[in-house]
């Protein structure tokens, strides 16, 4: 499990780093920020890192709510960018408009409140050691509810974005379309796992031994979304430089190639 997590984190970090040059020119900056926040959040809960930081930062386990807030930020940015990319004003409103910001603020306040109420005496990433404490359960559930809220919205929006392949597209555009499509499918698969994790929370509460197994889900989500985003990037690069001919005669000449 730790090896898988490490690989996923390294890949996520690398793919984020690859985006830095373009972001310096102003392209895809939010996605880079999202990548940094998310990788950092996942990195901080790796036990040795967590233990080391917990000694430095005042307040037992104060690192954990910090990771939650970082992840909130990362997920908020990703959802906002996806909503904007999909061109859905309603989704943008629910993610980063007034309702979306209220949800974020509420989640953040509740997470901090439950953390303070939980009072876990020993250093433990994700407060896993006190998993059967009701406030820890609420603490975990609150963040999952917020993530699930965003992910359910995203799953629906992404699922709606699949149309037929472009009419009269060139071979290169079709290749880009396939990459893009696969990317969206992977992201969707990743988002679906988040509400699944939420539904499994009572299980980890009642049967703490299942906790480790369930932790596979967030890492899978990270892996799927990271690869999915990368495929979208590949799609853009594949389609780039292609003369975009949407003239009627152009479409007409290419219609036969579709079949």
């Amino acid at each position: 499990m730790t090896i898988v997590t490490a690989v996923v984190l390294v890949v996520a970090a690398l793919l984020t780093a690859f985006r830095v040059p373009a972001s310096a020119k102003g392209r895809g900056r939010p996605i880079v920020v999202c990548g940094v926040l998310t990788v950092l959040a996942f990195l901080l809960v790796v036990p040795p890192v967590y233990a080391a930081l917990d000694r430095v930062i005042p307040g037992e386990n104060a690192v954990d709510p910090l990771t939650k807030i970082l992840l909130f930020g990362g997920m908020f940015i990703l959802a906002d960018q996806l909503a904007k990319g999909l061109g859905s004003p309603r989704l943008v409103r629910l993610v980063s408009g007034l309702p979306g910001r209220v949800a974020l603020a509420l989640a953040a306040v509740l997470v901090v409140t439950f953390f303070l109420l939980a009072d876990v005496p020993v250093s433990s990433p994700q407060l896993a050691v006190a998993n059967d404490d009701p406030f820890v359960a609420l603490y975990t559930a609150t963040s999952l509810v917020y993530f699930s809220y965003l992910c359910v919205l995203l799953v629906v929006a992404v699922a709606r974005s699949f149309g037929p392949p472009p009419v009269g597209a060139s071979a290169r555009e079709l290749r880009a379309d396939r990459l893009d499509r696969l990317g969206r499918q992977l992201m969707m698969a990743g988002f679906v796992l988040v509400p699944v994790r939420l539904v499994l929370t009572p299980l980890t509460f009642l049967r703490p031994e299942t906790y480790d197994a369930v932790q596979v889900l967030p890492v899978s989500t990270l892996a799927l979304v990271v690869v999915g985003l990368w495929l979208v990037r590949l799609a853009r690069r594949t389609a780039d430089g292609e003369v975009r001919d949407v003239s009627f005669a152009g479409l007409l000449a290419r219609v036969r190639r579709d079949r």
Partner: protein
Amino acid sequence: MAVDAREFRRWAESVGLPSAVATLARTLDVSRATLQAQFVRGRVAEQTVVTAARAAGTGPVAALSAFSDFAGLADRVTLPTVAELLSQTTYIDVSMEVVARIAGPLGEVGDRYPEPPLPTLDGVRSWFNAVDDGELRRRVSEAAGIVPQGLSTSLTDNKLRPQLAVLAADLAGVSAASGLVVTGLVTPEEGGWPAHARRGALAGLGELELIEHMTERSRHAARIVGRAVEEQARVQKFRDTLG
């Protein structure tokens, strides 16, 4: 849906095509695996029959008539109606006709825009609508035992299975091969459409009819180009934001 593989073997033998799959695939210049799969499934695609007929030097429509699913097809081939021909023209064809009427024969310029190859953009649905008496969708889906929604989806995708295309043409009372022509399975000539029939149909229109047809086709083209532009902008925005 396709024709029976045993019938295909019998027919292939009768027109002198090799019976071994490998040789046949080479003769037809199709993938051996595809052909093999069709034989294993026991159904050979109509497209294969058409390719084989061309290789054997017989007319595809006559070849299809040899199969029980398309029995008597060649006997029901008549001249296409003007409405059918017009449904397969674009606003560019109409514009050429307008210019030709004013400026005289276009010569070389006209050759640069030949009649569009079939299927044309949204041409299958255009044809279906042109032969539709208002009840054709229902009648075709009832006769074929499919849901009307499936037929509409297929038309939206600019597709129509050969058997449905023939069925629709028969029910609409037009030439049985017309549906195969507009879906691009057979060429207009193979389907019994006279050479340059579409240009001829345009040339035969009175000015008012021509203007009305141009309006209709322009609106049609605007819808297609508009959708393509919109779709492209949508995709571009998605990739620019996340890529």
